[in-house]
């Protein structure tokens, strides 16, 4: 129990207690019936399932393809470019995609010859949102799959070369079955992230036309925040968590089994054909991933009158650096807060989660895993009020500590999930040897050094999630950092990035430049992480196999 105790105490105080507080204390049947009245619940469930399943499958498939490309073609640039969608604040990227899809005015519809905006038709709105969902989710499965492919033992690669296997046969018959578990983990994580995705449907369509793209997270938000109907919100949040939890648990059982997850694919293609084909497909996918960032760059560096033209102005003309320079200067206090909070929250998450994940991986207190997945899947609005009360009464509002303590509700639960698999794949012989030699504190003295790369990769992922956190910084901080003594304020860059959205007005130049400025540190972290993964085989990367 001792390894998981700190984690359990943490999630009890800041996870379970707020959950019970919100849902059980606020529960009343009339609230639930009011929440269901008049709403097309079936359509909302359908939209949520379509969005999350298709996003997970498509992003995992593309992530796998790009990982193979980066591995086969030694493409460090590919890897860095793939991670770009993860660098941009979600609200900003959703808004940029919104204007990219304008029929004939947006670059996307223009390049595809579409005369209409897919978000503006009831029959295609949810698919338009899903497209953007795939774009924003690809980096996560890519990172997982790339790490897994780089972890394939050197001996297996060399044996394949000696046997004269082409690259296509190597990946189809050896590498893919080997990294099957990693693919499943990537699929699961993408699915869970998508089920709870609030930003995209809210910003892109508001759930319309009508209810044609309304999803469960939107309903939870409306019930709890706009209608003050906690019971109604609890009902839909419960549905949402079940939707995330059930497949996660089923697939987790499959992950623990010994059989191969992905089948062996007999693809016989000479390298002289395989490599160029892979290159062409990769280039097309990269175009899809990178162009919105290029569009954001244009929006940041030119006047807004050039953003709404038909046909769209694709070339970098009429550029001005004024928005970017202003954002660079004004973002400084927010940037400092984000760096401090993200580093501390990520450290705290890994420190809490790793011992608990180890206990689960050796078969003790397995219930911690489904509990973690459940809490991870809950919409943040479910916890907001009780957590605010706890932080406020502790006198921590508007301090770094408010965020370092609250953000790990999601990052630590995520870390438990991902680290459990890493620890589960460690050979049992290490633990047995520790027992034989009576090594005390085996986890810290033996397991941690052996799984350093996995811990580092988890740290990077939780850093990125902490960096993008918006809701907790919003409710728990008031002002940007001021370097008085003692220093006050802790607003993060995600709040800074929203200042471009005014009352019935969007300052597009400010939006684009704030998003780019906010993305810079994450781009650097991503590059370092990918470099680390590409360098190491057994030494580097997350072991998701």
């Amino acid at each position, binding site marked *: 129990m001792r390894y998981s105790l700190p984690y359990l105490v943490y999630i009890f105080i800041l996870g379970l207690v707020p959950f019970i507080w919100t849902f059980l204390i606020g529960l009343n049947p009339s609230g639930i019936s009011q929440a269901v*009245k*008049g*709403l097309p619940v079936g359509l909302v469930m359908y939209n949520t399932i379509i969005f999350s399943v298709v996003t997970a499958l498509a992003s995992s498939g593309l992530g796998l393809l790009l990982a193979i490309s980066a591995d086969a073609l030694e493409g460090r640039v590919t890897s860095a470019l793939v991670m770009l969608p993860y660098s941009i604040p979600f*609200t900003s990227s959703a*808004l940029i995609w919104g*204007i990219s899809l*304008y*029929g*004939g*005015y947006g670059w996307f519809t223009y390049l595809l010859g579409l*005369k*209409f*905006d897919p978000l*503006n*038709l009831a029959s295609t709105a949810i698919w338009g949102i899903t497209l953007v969902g795939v774009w924003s989710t690809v980096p996560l499965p890519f990172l997982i799959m790339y790490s897994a492919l780089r972890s394939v033992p050197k001996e297996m690669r060399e044996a394949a070369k000696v046997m004269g296997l082409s690259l296509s046969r190597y990946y189809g018959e050896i590498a893919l079955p080997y990294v099957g578990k990693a693919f499943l983990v990537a699929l699961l994580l993408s699915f869970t992230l998508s089920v709870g995705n609030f930003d995209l449907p809210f910003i892109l*369509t*508001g*759930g*319309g*036309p*009508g*209810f*044609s793209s309304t999803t469960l997270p939107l*309903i939870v938000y*409306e*019930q709890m*925040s*706009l*209608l*003050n109907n906690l019971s109604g919100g609890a009902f839909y949040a419960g549905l949402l968590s079940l939707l995330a939890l059930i497949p996660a648990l089923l697939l987790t059982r499959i992950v623990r089994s010994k059989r191969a997850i992905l089948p062996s694919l007999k693809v016989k293609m000479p390298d002289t054909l395989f490599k160029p084909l892979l290159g062409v497909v990769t280039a097309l996918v990269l175009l899809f991933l990178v162009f919105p960032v290029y569009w954001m760059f244009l929006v940041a560096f030119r006047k*807004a*009158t050039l*953003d*709404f*033209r*038909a046909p769209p102005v694709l070339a970098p003309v009429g550029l001005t650096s004024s928005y970017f320079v202003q954002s660079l200067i004004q973002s400084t206090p927010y940037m400092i807060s984000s760096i401090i909070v993200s580093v501390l929250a990520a450290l705290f998450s890994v420190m809490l989660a790793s011992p608990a994940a180890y206990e689960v991986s050796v078969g003790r207190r397995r219930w911690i895993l489904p509990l973690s997945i459940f809490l991870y899947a809950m919409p943040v609005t479910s916890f*907001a*009020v009780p957590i*605010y*009360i706890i932080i*406020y009464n502790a006198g921590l509002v508007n301090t770094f500590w408010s965020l370092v303590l609250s953000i790990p509700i999601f990052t630590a639960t995520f870390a438990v999930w991902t680290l459990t698999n890493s620890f589960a794949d460690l050979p049992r012989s290490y633990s047995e040897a520790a027992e034989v030699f009576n090594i005390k504190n085996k986890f810290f003295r033996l397991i941690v050094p052996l799984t350093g790369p996995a811990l580092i990769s988890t740290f990077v992922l939780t850093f990125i999630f902490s960096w993008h956190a*918006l*809701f907790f910084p*919003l*409710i728990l901080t*008031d*002002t940007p950092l001021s370097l008085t*003594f*003692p220093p006050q304020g802790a607003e993060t860059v995600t*709040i800074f990035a*929203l*200042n471009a*959205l*005014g*009352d*019935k*007005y*969007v*300052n*597009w130049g400010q939006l684009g430049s704030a998003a780019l400025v906010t993305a810079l540190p994450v781009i650097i972290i991503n590059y370092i992480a990918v470099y680390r993964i590409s360098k190491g085989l057994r030494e580097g990367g997350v072991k998701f196999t």
Partner: protein
Amino acid sequence: MALATIIVVVVIVAAVASFAYLLNSSSKVVTLNFVYFSGNLCTFLQYAAQQFDNQHPGVKINVIGEPFSEYIDKQLTVLQAHSSQYDLVGFTSTSAQSVSPYLLPLNNSFNFSDLLQAQEFFGGVIYNSTTGEQENIGVALTTAVYLMIYNKSIFDNQTLASEFQQQYHVNFSPLTWQNWTDVIYADQFLTSHHITKYGFLIDDHESHGIIDAYPAVYYWYYSRDANLTGGNPNGIAGYNIMFTGYVPKGFNYPLPSFNSSAGVEALETYAKLVSYEPSPLQLQVDYDNIITLYEEGVSPGAFVFSTQIAHFPSNVSSVTGVAPLPGGYMETGTDFLGISKFSHHKALALEFLQFLLSKQMQEVLYYKFHDFPVLRSVYTDILSNSSLTQSQRQELQTIYQYAQVAYANPPNIPPTYSYLIPTFNGQVYNYLTGQNTNATQVLQSAAESWVKYLG
């Protein structure tokens, strides 16, 4: 040794921090926290707070600016927690009924007599369906209205003016237009002569804008139908003109009014206006793009909120005139200030509100921050200032005159955002895009959905 050093350093830092904390808390400063959305008005509030502090030693008003897109999440979390963290909150008319349960009624403690009543009505006043009474839960800070802007360089052109007059027998100046048909004539004239690519831009955003644009058009028809208004052309607070101006017998809320011949005519007019801009299937005109599109010069004018005009560069604002909606009225879109029920300094908060709504600060709002005051007496004073330019005077006069008739408002009862808007906008959108060509059926479906939900 290293450990001892670390312990000593930690103790020193803790001691200094504690001393600083004690120093802070031992002073007798009363701090009021006021959360508002970032922007020009927030800057005004911070300025006003400083002035108030100077006049009240021992008091500090802390104005906290939050991103507009997320302010309601922050406020509601704090208010739902019954926290005293914020003493004063700012909110829009759309959010009014979400925050109203947590705000102090102001009927008996604030003098509303000099306020432009139409500004206060949509968001500052809520209708209590149990008592049948209206309660003031917020105070309007400025005048913000939905109106018509137009490119003066087009409409001051005498050649175009006489040709237009000859063809349509209507004066070319938007200031004179008496009905929406005059706008359609101008759209037709200007686009057919290739003067502009589009006509007057009007919001047709399915997710939200339709609920702002439709009432702007509909009021012209609604206010002329006594069966709908019941003698109350402004509607009942919270329900406004999309519902009848009276509560029928046997109901405790008014019924939808737009499923009527007046509503159908308004929808047909709205659709004609939308036909002179990009198809909504292609690009929906909304807050994100209407200002930029107008700036590009693709349209002769637009229907916008007065707060949006502030974002024009000077080369655009210098040639942009303001006019009421055709027929001489406007729609409201102002913001409000309320006092939290959980504040520990309610009397002081009220005093600050009264300070913000004083003549002195309302004049500062106009002269220094270029926003429109909300007190009638302040308009009179400013308009008597001979140093105003001709265009400033015309703009102020127009705003003052027609903001008093700014009742062309959508509802803002709690289910508006989550249910009324999606059902109404979805149906109207189908009509605007030609997916359903029966205006009567479209409005009837929307009305039935509203009744089903509210019933």
